[in-house]
């Protein structure tokens, strides 16, 4: 994240490492949205996402000195956060999604199908969160966080070919699971 030729993340990291912990507030302000949203893709629960993101920021603060100055800060930040979320997801049960949350997913050209589409979209997203971790992580970073293959690979610390294979396999598993769910939901096919 560079503005006007300067890198505020790099400046804040240097200030923190020089003994000014309050400079970390700048990093939190700039990255709270992306980190909370990334956590939400894992757990599909707003309150839990904030707790997970808080833990991720704490881990980032503790290991700030391990960030290599020549690497992109955001890649390192997402790598730390993904590791935190992955280990936290091992401890908690699979995500449950309250449907009353304010989401608006519209089915193209069919306003009456909004509720149905919302329901189906949530089923798909929940299915991603319930995939085996290595496929889930790749899909979340690539689709939800809109990273490209290269950035996803760097964040996960694996080669680009591995990411492509995991995305391919993850999508296939997702399609199978959605098909299974759809076969138990005859009203979905009517829309």
């Amino acid at each position, binding site marked *: 994240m560079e503005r006007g030729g300067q890198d505020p993340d790099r400046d804040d990291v240097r200030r923190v490492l020089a003994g000014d912990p309050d400079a970390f507030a700048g990093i939190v302000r700039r990255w709270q949205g992306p980190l909370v949203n990334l956590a939400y893709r894992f757990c599909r629960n707003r309150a839990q996402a904030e707790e997970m993101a808080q833990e991720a920021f704490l881990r980032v603060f503790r290991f700030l*000195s*391990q960030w290599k100055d020549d690497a992109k800060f955001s890649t390192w930040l997402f790598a730390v956060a993904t590791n935190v979320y992955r280990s936290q997801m091992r401890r908690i049960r699979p995500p449950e999604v309250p449907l009353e949350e304010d989401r608006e997913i519209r089915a193209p050209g069919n306003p009456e199908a909004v509720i149905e589409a919302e329901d*189906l979209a949530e089923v798909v997203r929940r299915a991603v969160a319930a995939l085996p971790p290595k496929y889930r992580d790749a899909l979340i970073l690539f689709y939800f966080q809109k990273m490209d293959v290269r950035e996803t690979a760097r964040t996960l610390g694996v080669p680009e070919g591995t990411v492509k294979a995991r995305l391919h396999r993850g999508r296939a598993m997702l399609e199978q699971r959605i098909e299974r769910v759809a076969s138990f939901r005859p009203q979905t096919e009517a829309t």
Partner: protein
Amino acid sequence: MKPLDIERILRDDPEITPSPDFSGRVMRTVHRDIELRGGLEFPWARLVTGLAICTVLTIVGVVISVMRGDPAPAVLEHLARTARQPAITTALVWVPTSLAGAYLMVWWSMRAAGLRR
């Protein structure tokens, strides 16, 4: 459901906004952590990497020097002579042992006092 529909659903997941006091909560946690742990994590990985690089470079230098048949520098000969003296040999064993013992005692005391987790 077509694969493209799945991809569209995944890409169109709505963003959520953190609570207004989220950054404040994080900073309070950070300050509490500083009080508990006494600051930032020591960069052990960098220290070990640096020491490893220095060791490798020293070994490579010595090996190249030996292969070229260079005469040993006077300082190395002096060090070798000094290290062979009985008092120095004894000290080479006991000084590191004492330092390690002192380190363990400090570490255990801090742990018992709850200054380290």
